[in-house]
């Protein structure tokens, strides 16, 4: 096959796996690039070779789904050009640039399916950069993929489905859960009960985890507001206000926090996709139609990277985007299946919107951060630095970036972008949409020094992939 006919899938999680399955089923041979050493994405991340825990132990209620997804991908191995341990760091003129075990490569493509997933949505709080403070997803990965807890006594803070799930998984695995602190209030959920009920078993599982935590005597508070992570050189506690406004303190040597998931859309931006401000996600997302077509011909989006809807939806969206790609190429197949998938997705979207309102990102907390709180953890830019940059009359967030180095560090604003936008919007008295977004820039992640050359022998990422 000549290279200009390549179909490139980025990501081998739920969306990428299902997309690859559809395309391979048509005898196409998609290239699947994935950062991880094995397929599954973050949600169904596999454990390294030599680990023995059962799928049931690692994925709980989702074990059957995880195993089915892994089996699907494993069965495709001969029919896809699979490149694990490989990152796409730029996209330009229908060419993707990758780094991996064999060094740097360029992949020209005729069609691109971005299934890039998401990362934790973070709200900086004083002390959040101390050793011992991790994202909720990070805490789950430590347990799921490494068999470790992030500390001796772990506090969980935030809101969203992962909060109860990860706290449950920790307690169940024998870790000490110091407290589960949910910023959502019951009153947030009341207006959206009909929407929540469309969640069916997903809702039931969430409630089951909450009840399990209560039944097992784990302190569980709703409606809290974080004050600070305490500690000098490392996390030693967590302070918060309870629902009545009283200050409380929890002793812990680790804390996991996060408010749902935010999409990873840097590659969509680099591919030239139009972006729109999404009021539910409170951030800019790539435009796409109901079947995953972006604004750029030949570029398709699926999974949480195209707007967070969760793992079940990601499987549907991956399949749907691949079917749309086939339809756009004149392959007359899958019309009924596409219709079915869209109906399922509409139902999941209703639940997702209700969930976002019931377990919201706590609006106003970032804007209220004290001036000395670090917002950009890469560069140590504080809330005060961001506010002061406003006296220079920048009109939007990229001007603030130029003045403060906000978002200029290694993570490119993945962790701080949402909070920084809120601080700027509040300071300027404008909407979040008017603040703009930190634009994605290549390389979207730091490149290895000495990649592909003699240094490879000393490169443990290479060792792991062999």
């Amino acid at each position, binding site marked *: 096959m000549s290279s200009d006919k390549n179909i490139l899938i980025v990501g081998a999680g739920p969306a990428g796996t299902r997309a690859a399955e559809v395309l391979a089923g048509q005898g196409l041979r998609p290239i699947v690039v994935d950062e991880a050493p094995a397929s599954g994405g973050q949600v169904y991340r596999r454990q390294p070779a030599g680990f023995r825990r059962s799928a049931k132990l690692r994925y709980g209620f989702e074990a059957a789904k995880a195993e089915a997804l892994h089996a699907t991908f494993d069965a495709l191995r001969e029919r896809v050009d699979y490149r694990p341990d490989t990152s796409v760091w730029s996209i330009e003129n229908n060419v993707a640039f990758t780094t991996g075990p064999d060094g740097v490569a360029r992949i020209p493509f005729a069609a691109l399916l971005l299934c890039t997933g998401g990362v934790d949505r973070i709200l900086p709080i004083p002390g959040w950069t101390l050793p011992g403070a991790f994202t909720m997803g990070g805490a789950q990965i430590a347990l799921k993929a490494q068999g470790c807890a992030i500390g001796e006594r772990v506090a969980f803070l935030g809101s969203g489905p992962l909060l109860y799930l990860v706290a449950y998984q920790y307690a169940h*695995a024998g870790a000490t859960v110091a407290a589960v602190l949910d910023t959502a209030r019951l009153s947030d959920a009341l207006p959206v009960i009909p929407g929540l009920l469309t969640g069916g078993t997903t809702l039931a599982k969430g409630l089951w985890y909450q009840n399990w935590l209560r039944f097992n005597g784990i302190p569980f508070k709703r409606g809290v507001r974080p004050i600070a992570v305490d500690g000098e050189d490392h996390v030693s506690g967590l302070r918060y206000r309870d629902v009545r406004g009283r200050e409380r303190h929890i002793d812990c040597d680790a804390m996991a926090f996060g408010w749902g998931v935010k999409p990873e859309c840097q590659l969509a931006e680099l591919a030239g996709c139009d972006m729109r401000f999404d009021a539910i996600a409170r951030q800019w997302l790539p435009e796409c139609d109901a079947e995953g077509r972006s604004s750029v011909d030949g570029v398709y989006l699926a999974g949480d990277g195209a707007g967070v809807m969760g793992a079940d939806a990601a499987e549907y969206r991956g399949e749907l985007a691949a079917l749309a790609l086939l339809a756009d190429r004149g392959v007359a197949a899958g019309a009924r299946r596409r219709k079915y998938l869209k109906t399922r997705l509409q139902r999941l979207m209703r639940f997702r919107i209700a969930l976002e309102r019931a377990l919201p990102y706590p609006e106003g907390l970032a804007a209220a951060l004290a001036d000395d709180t670090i917002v950009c953890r890469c560069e*140590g830019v504080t809330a005060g630095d961001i506010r002061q940059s406003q006296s220079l009359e920048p009109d939007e967030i990229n001007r603030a970036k130029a003045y403060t180095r906000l978002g200029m560090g290694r993570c490119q604003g993945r962790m701080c972008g949402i909070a920084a936008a809120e601080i700027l919007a509040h300071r300027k008295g404008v909407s979040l949409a008017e603040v703009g977004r930190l634009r994605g820039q290549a390389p979207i992640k730091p490149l290895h020094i000495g990649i592909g050359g003699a240094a490879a022998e000393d490169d443990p990422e290479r060792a792991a992939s062999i």
Partner: protein
Amino acid sequence: MGENVIVSKNSGRVQFVRLSETERPEITIHVDGAPVSALAGDTLLTALLLAGGQVRDFEFGAGGRAGFCLMGACQDCWVQLESGGSVRACTSYVREGLRLKTGGAE
């Protein structure tokens, strides 16, 4: 002996706790010159945080860092190889003979 101390401020404490999966082959890596025992399949971050309290000093201010997202997104956990170059600790795995420095990134 400063060069044999894993980390300056967070030495003497460890961050992670291993709960399971202990039946794997042992691997020794060297961190700031000192041997650190790990198990095959541990990420560098896991190995470092089972042996110490942080993985690097923060280059723009006081304090240390111990990683954050564990999924290759936040870039908080880059550590140096003695032989030059640096790696992201949360997405790299231990290997016999590996030698790391935790002084800082880049």
